[in-house]
């Protein structure tokens, strides 16, 4: 081995040793710095991806268009019939649309955010959003949509943040089940092959006997997630050696997220 290689190896070892001494705070700070540096590329890439996707989905073959046209004609006749009846409802819907705007009706202070990127790694379920400390975002803040819980913020930089999805095994949420006194901890699965991940509600009592469709909400225990946020609906329940475990279907479609809200506090 040449002298240059040995010197290079020594320098490499020193730098490696320096990084290995990083604790959580320094790691978070460093990670935030790197994210901040590449934020323009991430947001630019996100815009480009949306344009490409819209062009791709807009392209259809002639046969597809003919089929679509035929079905649209049938649908059009049916819609004309129902349209008359819906006119009265339309006025009411417009009135309620504003009233029911999620941000307004929510009891929480919400900061709207857009998903910039999805997880690029195999073992972690994360997304990045285009809001950061400049928008009042901090670490460990709940992230929601009007449908329910999405996850929580982890690393936050000036205007980009990492969100740990509820489908990640590390995202633990204290939950209660509607219509029962059952409380447990929801966490994701380490590996999920399907597009829709399932959540596990652990530490239930063996007598819980939950029925499919029962909803699980955040219980507010732990302080990160405020109580009353919908997490998912029970799919199955099984009794284990020491406790009961329910499998939940998340209410939010985590694979097609576009816009979310970060809960910054209560109103």
């Amino acid at each position, binding site marked *: 081995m040449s002298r240059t290689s040995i010197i290079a190896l020594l320098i490499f070892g020193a730098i490696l040793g320096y990084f290995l001494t990083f604790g959580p705070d320094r790691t978070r700070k460093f990670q935030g710095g790197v994210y901040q540096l590449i934020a323009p590329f991430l947001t630019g890439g996100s815009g480009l991806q949306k344009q490409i996707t819209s062009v791709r989905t807009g392209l259809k073959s002639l046969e597809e268009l003919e089929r679509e046209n035929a079905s649209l004609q049938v649908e059009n006749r049916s819609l004309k019939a129902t349209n008359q009846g819906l006119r009265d409802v339309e006025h009411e819907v417009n009135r309620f649309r504003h009233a029911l705007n999620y941000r307004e009706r929510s009891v929480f202070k919400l900061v709207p955010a857009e998903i910039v990127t999805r997880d690029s790694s195999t073992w972690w379920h994360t997304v990045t959003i285009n809001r950061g400390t400049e928008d009042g975002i901090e670490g460990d803040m709940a992230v929601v949509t009007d449908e329910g819980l999405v996850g929580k913020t982890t690393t936050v930089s000036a205007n980009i943040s990492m969100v740990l999805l509820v489908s990640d095994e590390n995202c633990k949420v204290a939950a209660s089940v509607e219509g029962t006194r059952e409380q447990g901890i929801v966490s994701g699965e380490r*590996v999920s*092959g399907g597009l829709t991940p399932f959540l596990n509600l652990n530490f239930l009592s063996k007598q819980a006997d939950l029925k499919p469709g029962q909803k699980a909400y955040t219980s507010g225990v732990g302080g990160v997630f405020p109580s009353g946020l919908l997490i998912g609906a029970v799919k199955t329940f099984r009794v284990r050696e020491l406790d009961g475990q329910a499998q939940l279907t998340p209410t939010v479609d985590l694979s097609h997220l576009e816009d979310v809200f970060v809960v910054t506090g209560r109103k």
Partner: protein
Amino acid sequence: MIFFFILLVFVLIAQIAEFFIPTLPWLHNAHIYIAPVIVFYGAMALPFPLMLALALYAGILLDALTVQVIGAKVEISMGWSILLYAVLAGIMHGLRPLFIRGRWEVHCVLSGICTSAIILAQYLMITFRRGSIIFSGEVWWQIGGPGLIAMVMAPIIFWVLQWMARITAYPYLSERSRFE
């Protein structure tokens, strides 16, 4: 030296691009990793000190962009990816004579294996942290799938990078012309 900086830029672009590349549903939602293939090409094409520098750079990027910090806990400490890249790139560098002779196939296969090795190492580390060892079929696909894809992508990426090296008159590949 210009070529080394080109590789640095390519690794950064690849690492950012990985955020936007969707997973493959037909391959058990396997991710596509481009950056490791570029690093492994660099391991063959660059001299030892620059190979270490590339591994350091790619490892820092990988850690900074993927590692999770939850509360007071870091799942995989900063630096582990640097070490992984350096060890695997070192193995690839050791097979450089084959590459110089124009035999790329071994390196293409190795790129896939090494990509899977990175993911396997990450999985072992998080398993060690979280407990309960799970090695289901899904896990193996999540580990092996990206490796298979890297193997398929490697010849194209290698060819593009080789072409870039020639354009920039990269001197370290000059021996190769003797075998063409």
